């Protein structure tokens, strides 16, 4: 497979995954403003996701609507939902011969939906949650179609590299935002609000309730997001997936330089032998920066091993 094609497949899935995270975050934050009346929380999303750093005053429901509209549709900000779907589709268009026809159709339909002339009026006329749910449906279709139609070759692996790398980066980012203030031994009610929202936005709320019942402690949440084996957005789960696909790619392409495989394997095993107590001992901050630096390294090595020739 061409390096350029591999790179585009990787980014196609990264953009879809990122857009998925963004949509969920919009939903959760919108809900939380309805609860707390604290509209300033939009500033966090604007700065982490869209690189808008100036702090804005958001005061009411209408501000929420207009900021959601901005996050979804602003054409000039590269990180809006619209632009991510355009980029995902652009990548898909450039690799059409490598993805299943069904997958191409699903990305293209998403693109046509979001670039449709009447979409802004549709947003104005609808409940924002319903509107975002309609968009999320396209993400869900994308994942399902990829799952049942895409052959398990190079293309599938590169797509998964993009997907899981983006996912693990997001999960880590979510925790980091709060890590500074986090006190694992001293809980308060606001923390629990925050964690509930966080869990909801990454789809882990139900699983959490099943496992820990309705007791919200930072420690449990952290354990779930970082170490749970079965939670598809946990760090450990994503790293395991990254390992599987990198190993396959090594096999498919007969690669001999084991640097990348070695690094991802090492991280995988480290996580598999880490408990929440270890993290507490080490300090949440140290732990997160360790994972972040490992991810940076792995990401660099993915580039070097598979895409380096394009630079």
């Amino acid at each position, binding site marked *: 497979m061409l390096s350029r094609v591999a790179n585009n497949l990787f980014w196609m899935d990264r953009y879809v995954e990122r857009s998925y995270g963004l949509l969920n975050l919009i939903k959760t934050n919108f809900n939380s403003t309805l609860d707390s009346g604290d509209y300033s929380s939009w500033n966090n999303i604007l700065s982490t996701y869209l690189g808008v750093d100036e702090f804005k005053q958001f005061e009411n429901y209408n501000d929420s609507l207009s900021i959601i509209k901005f996050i979804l549709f602003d054409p000039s900000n590269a990180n809006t939902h619209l632009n991510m779907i355009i980029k995902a589709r652009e990548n898909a268009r450039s690799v059409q*011969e490598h993805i299943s026809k069904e997958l191409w159709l699903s990305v293209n339909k998403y693109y046509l939906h979001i670039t449709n002339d009447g979409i802004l009026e549709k947003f104005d006329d609808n409940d924002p949650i319903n509107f975002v749910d309609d968009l999320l449906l396209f993400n869900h279709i994308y994942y399902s179609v990829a799952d049942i139609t895409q052959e398990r070759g190079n293309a599938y692996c590169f797509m998964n590299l993009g997907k899981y790398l983006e996912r693990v980066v997001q999960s880590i980012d979510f925790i980091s935002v709060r890590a500074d203030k986090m006190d694992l031994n001293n809980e308060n009610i606001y923390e629990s609000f925050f964690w509930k929202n966080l869990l909801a936005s990454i789809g882990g709320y139900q699983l959490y309730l099943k496992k820990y019942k309705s007791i919200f402690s930072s420690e449990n949440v952290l354990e779930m997001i970082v170490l749970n084996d079965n939670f598809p957005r946990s760090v450990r789960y994503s790293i395991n997936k990254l390992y599987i696909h990198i190993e396959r*790619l090594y096999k498919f392409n007969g690669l001999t330089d084991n640097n990348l495989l070695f690094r991802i394997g090492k991280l995988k095993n480290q996580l598999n032998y880490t408990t929440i107590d270890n993290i507490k001992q080490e300090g949440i901050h140290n732990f997160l920066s360790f994972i972040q630096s490992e991810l940076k390294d792995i990401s660099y090595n993915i580039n070097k091993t598979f895409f380096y020739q394009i630079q």
Partner: protein
Amino acid sequence: MISNYTKYPNTWDEMFDDSGSIRNTYKNFESFLKRTPIETLLQMQDFSSQLFMDHGVTFRVYSDNKGVERIFPFDILPRIINESEWKIIDAGIKQRIKALNLFLKDAYHEQFIFKDGVIPHELLLNNKNFLREMMNLRVPNDVYTHISGVDLIRNNDGDFYVLEDNLRTPSGVSYMLENRQISRRLYPNLMPTSNVLPVDNYPEILYQQLKSLVDKEDPEIVLLTPGLYNSAYYEHAALARLMGIELVEGNDLVLDNHHVFMKTAGGLKKIDIIYRRIDDDYLDPLNFNSESVLGLAGIMESYRQGKVIIVNAPGTGIADDKAMYVYVPDMISYYLNEEPILKNIRTYQLSNPDERQYVYDNVEKMVIKETEGSGGYGMLMGNNATKSMIESYFKKVSKQPHKYIAQPILSLSSVPCIIDNELSPRCVDLRPFAISGANGIKVCPGGLSRVALKENSLVVNSSQGGGSKDTWVIKD
């Protein structure tokens, strides 16, 4: 609906004869039209546009610095040709492509046809598409023009004429394939009973022909595209997908010891054949346009050393420009000793003072074209031009008369299209595609029928308001 159809005057209509009755070819289709209300046809029309959009069968147009994707307008009513007529076209195209190939070989080697005075030598030497790099180079199987598109029109005498040959990187074949796919969805009952000759094996034929150029079990064949922003990108991607070959860009390629490699996730992979969809000019910045970033520097040298095959061969542009067109019948008799099966349109050279005067005197019946122009640009249609337009055009001509030719305005045949909720005639041409290789020349039955969607217009180019139709060649 059929009874309201008003034919163009003095024009051959593909569906109706002069007395207004349906031609035999269309009999089966007529019964479909008779039982189908216009509302259903309009729904089918919408359905087809949506399908093209959903499938991303689009090209990008630029307006206000913003790229917008459009579909190539598609009219759902097929253009139908019967097989006996097709056989003539098929034989005519094969004959023509055979002669043009022999001409290319001759022009880049001994140049007998010029030495024998059949074609003026300056037409070759002044030709900006002539590539010195191709001189005395033996190309595999002596095939230069592997993929050709021959534009045909039907005059009001009912005969097909060749409008022009496209021997460089003719496009449109993906629309031939897509249109047929859509027709199957549109006419689920009609298609199976209409005995339409298949076109879907075009990618297989193309692949076989490309493969025949090297003596190798599993050669590495790639399609070289200028990239995502090229207007024909959809076609490049579709052909690569249908043939199962890699779609590469210039940046994906590197040279090592004059071999061409592509950069893959598993390292470098050697390429045997490049089906390029970029023009000669952009192929190799070392030899041609030095600004080009689309091709690969040094690829011409690899080609000359026989380390890679480029398809179509560089330099085929000398054989398909409008000045050389005049001599194709002479090529056919010179190389093949045969009468041309397909007619040329009478063409006047404006460098010849007598012919120029004749064109000037009869300008209202003439179309004047630049020999190096294409896409319907730079033309003067004498019947629609004002006096001052004609004068200023001739002023331009007189500066470089050898760059212009004139032809009588032919009436392109018309086909019924759905326009403003009713059947209305529109002019149509036909571009069949021929593929040459070690297995001879193959022509796909049918091709791309392009229609001029503007009323009374003769310009079928997609950039100027043209659309397309599916072309059915049906067994007699």
